């Protein structure tokens, strides 16, 4: 019998062979306290994996990668970023201008930054929530907002903008941005159309 602690580490670092995997499965199912221990180990593992992402976002944010801007009230429709992939209604002309500006001026900078510092650029977006502007920089936080279920049309469009931009300027999150946008369209299709 392999030491259970070693089995946990081998599982988390993807080093289990087939016999060890079977041993690990049997150990987990044998006693609830074994599964509890594994969950705690996974919480440790995941906590620090997540912190890596947070650190990268803060770094990127400090390097003035923000899309937030003064938002005029007039409505308009614009094609987001290079005219590719998605056409999304953009409520604020100022926002569209900032988005295009970011894409046209910052891509070389983003590219060099990601390659030289292994950092992922973070986007941010300002949303009016409960009568206050809130700066959102975290994708999971935005996802939580969907769950509140009472987003206005404009807020849904803003969040869609965020993911659309992310899918284009933030290479490491490209797929995730596209998927989030697709999910948003499923959840709030009528508000986006």
């Amino acid at each position, binding site marked *: 019998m392999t030491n259970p602690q070693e089995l946990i580490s081998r599982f988390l670092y993807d080093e289990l062979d087939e016999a060890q995997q079977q041993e690990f499965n049997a150990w987990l*199912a044998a006693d609830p306290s074994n599964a509890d*221990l594994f969950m705690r180990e996974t919480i*440790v593992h995941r906590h*620090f994996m997540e912190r*890596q992402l947070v650190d990268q976002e803060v770094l990127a944010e400090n390097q003035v990668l923000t899309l937030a801007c003064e938002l005029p009230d007039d409505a308009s429709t614009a094609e987001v970023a290079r005219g590719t992939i998605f056409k999304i209604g953009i409520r604020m002309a100022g926002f569209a201008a900032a988005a295009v500006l970011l894409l046209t001026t910052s891509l070389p900078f983003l590219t060099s930054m990601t390659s030289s510092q292994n950092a992922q650029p973070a986007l941010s977006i300002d949303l009016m929530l409960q009568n206050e502007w809130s700066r959102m920089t975290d994708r*999971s936080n935005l996802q939580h907002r969907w769950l509140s279920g*009472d987003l206005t049309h404009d807020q849904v469009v803003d969040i869609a903008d965020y993911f659309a931009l992310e899918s284009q300027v933030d290479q490491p999150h490209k797929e995730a941005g596209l998927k989030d946008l697709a999910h948003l369209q499923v959840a709030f299709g009528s508000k986006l159309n």
Partner: protein
Amino acid sequence: MNPSDVKKMQELARLWVDAQPTVAAFISAAIPNFHDAQDVLQRTAVALVQKAEDFDPDRPFIGWVVGIAKIEVMRQRRENQRDRLQLDESALDAVAGAAARVSAESAEMRQTLEQCFEKLSGKPRETFKLYYFDSLKRSRIAELLGMSTNAVFVALHRARTDLRRCMERKLGLEGGLS
């Protein structure tokens, strides 16, 4: 959406924010690849929205949402055949049960971990930082620190185990292996 639905969704959102770290840990326990696990976490959030009508506030939220996450884990496995080795059904059920049990401790655990990390020292700390914070592969860490890849594995194992033990000690939790 009528006012009671809005209230229900707001309650759901609040519960999700609290439960999300535990759900994320459960998914990571089932799917070791971090990026795949993130993907499944996102799918779980979307599934939660879609199943919101089924939400029963009188039943434990964590059990319900872990059940949804488990469905998404199984779906991901069907789509992604490269996960040759994985937890079987019984093991996955055991881990889902554990997720529900440790959920209440999860927030405290995460806070305590930061204090415990400050106590790590030497090679385990250095190795841990390179792997978790700098996202380096173990082979690269081995090159940088002049260690074998097996020694890197051992250092990571030791650091993570020390952190978990420290966390359990501080929170007075039982059940850890020595």
